């Protein structure tokens, strides 16, 4: 049995097309004050990051999609996009089997 690996998940939630976005509209109206009159189509949303321990990327994606669909987004008005990447095997935080990290750490990983 494969020991679980850690995957980084990014879930972006935004309002469905056609749903009024008063936040995005308000931001857009503020932009001319910066001298930026050419910005259009501003849509506000939310982003969530978390880690999932899973046997493989497909399993991590499946679990993350459940989190996104059942909790993070309200499907009546919102859509979500889920991105899964292998976690950067740097932090030895847990005393677990960190050695299982994949050879290529993957392109993502830059935190804010």
């Amino acid at each position, binding site marked *: 049995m494969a020991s679980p690996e850690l995957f980084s998940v990014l879930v972006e939630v935004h309002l469905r097309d056609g*749903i*009024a976005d*008063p*936040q995005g509209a*308000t931001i857009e109206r503020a932009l001319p004050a910066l001298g930026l009159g050419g910005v259009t189509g501003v849509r506000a949303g939310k982003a969530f990051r978390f880690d999932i321990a899973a046997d493989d990327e497909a399993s991590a994606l499946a679990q993350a999609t459940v989190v996104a669909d059942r*909790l*993070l987004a*309200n499907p*009546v*008005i919102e859509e979500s996009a889920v991105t899964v990447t292998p976690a950067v095997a740097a932090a030895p935080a847990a005393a677990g089997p960190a050695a299982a990290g994949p050879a290529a750490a993957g392109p993502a990983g830059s935190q804010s």
Partner: protein
Amino acid sequence: MAARVGVVMFPGTNCEHDAVLAVQRLGASADLVWHGDTSVAGYDALVLPGGFAHGDYLRPGAIARFSPVMEAVGRFAAEGGPVLGICNGFQVLTEAGLLPGALQKNRGLRFLCTTVSVRVESSASVLTAGVPVGTELSIPINHFEGNYTCDRETLAVLRDEDRVVLRYVDNPNGSVDAIAGVCNADRNVVGLMPHPERASDPLLGSVDGAVLLRALLASALASAEPVARATVA
């Protein structure tokens, strides 16, 4: 016989005592039901009052939906028990899938705290039974996320099935079709953004909310008799 009302309280709920007092003054008995409870046995009606359940984190009602009591609320509703969601309680019921649609930030991004006129659009719900269509009621609103939204198909169903229970006379928040309150297909679950419990005494400036709460209590007694739900704790 007095109706027994359970007023469900989540961490962050803040209108529970108003709701308890309002229905008590109309002759009902009322208890608070903690969100961690797993039974609502013994009640003839449930009220999910206003506030900020679980801090409104993520979205209003999004976390409250997972509170243990919600499973019991769902069963109570499925058995035909009257369930009323007021403001945040309405948001919780939509998130829980007991009512259609969702409540978005108000058009104009303003928190609204004022008294509005709402019109009864259907007498076929546990909240409006016996209240003539067209009756205008003066009831306070107090919300940031009260802008009722649903897709076109859902709106068509709500209209066709006469499930828009209340409409704003002068739409304050951008709600689609000026909807202030809706009910489920079985008409025993109703959600509304206005606060009827805050318009239930002359001292509060209006007693129009008592019209709705009285109808709820009558519905509670009516539904309690034939169904005779188990009163085992």
